């Protein structure tokens, strides 16, 4: 047995192939009005999606993303062997409620805003191990997240400039073992890193350290440098976290700024839309991945990219008890050609 480097899994090699068979992104109105609006498969007219509660609206968004990914891949639910899904709400309930109608073996995932990379890596591993189709789905909804983590929607509070806006969005990837682009090449699983940040309104700073750590480990474990990639997409560090990340790499002598972009900065137009430091939420990086990045890799616009979703593993309880916020980031390497 050849020993893998710590934390890095090889998905596609000489004998095995893991690829994204199909993918879809469903977003809310505000995300549809953003710069990537035309890339998404579904843009809802309002935040409610015809449901009586925000939690149900978010669940519906997940279902839309899953159903569209199936349709685009000409699959049915029966073809999918495992269903990995995650969201931000307590006990991962949005995902459980979207999965209850699927009749597919289900594994709920929680990695805060890093969940899309986590579910994608898990689905890739299960596809390779089981030679089958697996679904990786995540979502977030501004209104359901606000009422759980912050204040009621109509409350007249003011957000600080470092705060990020939870995206109303969902993304779904269906992984398989066909020899076709986009390939899931490798994945580096994150280590929980706590940089001592205690401000729940500054998640970028809480997560940038974890992104730096995971990306560094991925470069080291795969003997690559930032210039080997034509895109390094973090999500969702926002402006504050992105600036910190770039400075950390410059300090170390590896400059990522030429190829770096952040899903939280791509989803919205920060000059026109009132999102402060940028977007966040599991759905933010999921929708940017499924709406913009994966089509780019499939078409060959991007040859080799890193998708490094980042999560702040906090709860209001721990933050109120004075604890600092641990961050995590998982890196998935996606390529146009088999490497």
């Amino acid at each position, binding site marked *: 047995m050849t020993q893998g480097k710590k934390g890095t899994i090889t998905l596609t090699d000489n004998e095995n192939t893991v690829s994204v068979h199909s993918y879809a992104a469903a977003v809310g109105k505000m995300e549809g009005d953003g710069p990537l609006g035309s890339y998404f498969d579904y843009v809802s007219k309002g935040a409610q999606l015809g449901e009586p509660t925000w939690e149900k609206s978010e669940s519906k968004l997940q279902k839309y993303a899953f159903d569209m990914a199936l349709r685009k891949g000409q699959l049915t639910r029966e073809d999918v062997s495992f269903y990995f899904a995650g969201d931000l709400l307590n006990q991962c309930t949005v995902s459980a409620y979207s999965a209850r109608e699927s009749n597919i073996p289900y594994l709920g995932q929680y990695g805060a805003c890093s969940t899309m990379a986590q579910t994608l890596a898990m689905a890739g591993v299960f596809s390779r191990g089981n030679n089958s189709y697996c679904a990786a789905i995540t979502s977030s909804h501004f209104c359901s997240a606000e009422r759980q983590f912050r204040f009621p929607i109509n409350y007249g509070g003011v957000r600080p400039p*470092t705060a990020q806006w939870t995206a109303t969005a969902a993304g779904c990837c269906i992984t398989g073992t066909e020899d076709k682009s986009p390939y899931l090449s490798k994945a580096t699983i994150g280590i929980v890193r706590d940089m001592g940040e205690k401000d729940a309104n500054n998640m970028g700073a809480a997560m940038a350290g974890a992104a730096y750590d995971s990306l560094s480990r991925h470069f080291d474990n795969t003997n690559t440098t930032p210039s080997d990639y034509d895109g390094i997409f973090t999500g969702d560090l926002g402006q504050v976290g992105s600036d910190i990340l770039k400075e950390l790499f410059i300090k170390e002598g590896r400059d990522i700024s030429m190829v770096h972009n952040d899903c939280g900065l791509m989803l919205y137009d920060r000059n026109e839309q009132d999102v402060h430091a940028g977007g966040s939420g599991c759905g933010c990086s999921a929708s940017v991945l499924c709406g913009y990045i994966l089509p780019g890799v499939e078409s060959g616009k991007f040859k080799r990219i890193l998708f490094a979703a980042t999560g702040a593993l906090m709860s209001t309880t721990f933050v109120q008890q004075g604890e600092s916020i641990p961050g995590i980031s998982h890196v998935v390497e996606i390529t146009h050609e088999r490497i």
Partner: protein
Amino acid sequence: MNITKKEYKTIAKKHEGTSKLYITLPKTFLIGGFICCIGQFFINLYSYLGLDIEKSGIMTTVTLVFLSALLTGLGLYERIAKHAGAGTLVPVTGFANAVVSPAMEFKSEGLILGTAAKMFVIAGPVIVYGILAAFIYGIIYYITGLFM
């Protein structure tokens, strides 16, 4: 990781933006002041209609609370508050918004466990410490009264 928490904090601090006080403070002052002017308008109106000054004050509070609740219900209050900051938070209108907004938000969990139970989730601490402060003030007032 080859970076200490202290070094990280220095880097992080550098990239945190701060609010532009030269914009936010005048806006707060003007909108907060405007709400006070509306209050004064109602006091004068009720006095003109024949109420004494104390009753005019009470009726003005009731009116402002009603207007704030109405604007909250219409989804307009938080749009004004975004610009006003403490200008809409400090007057009695902010208190009304803090009660009405959770009452609306949590109605999906029912009238008892949602609306009623969550209604004071933001305003509750204000009431608790407001009463406590009044209580302490009362004791000091009583004690100083014994020697005056």
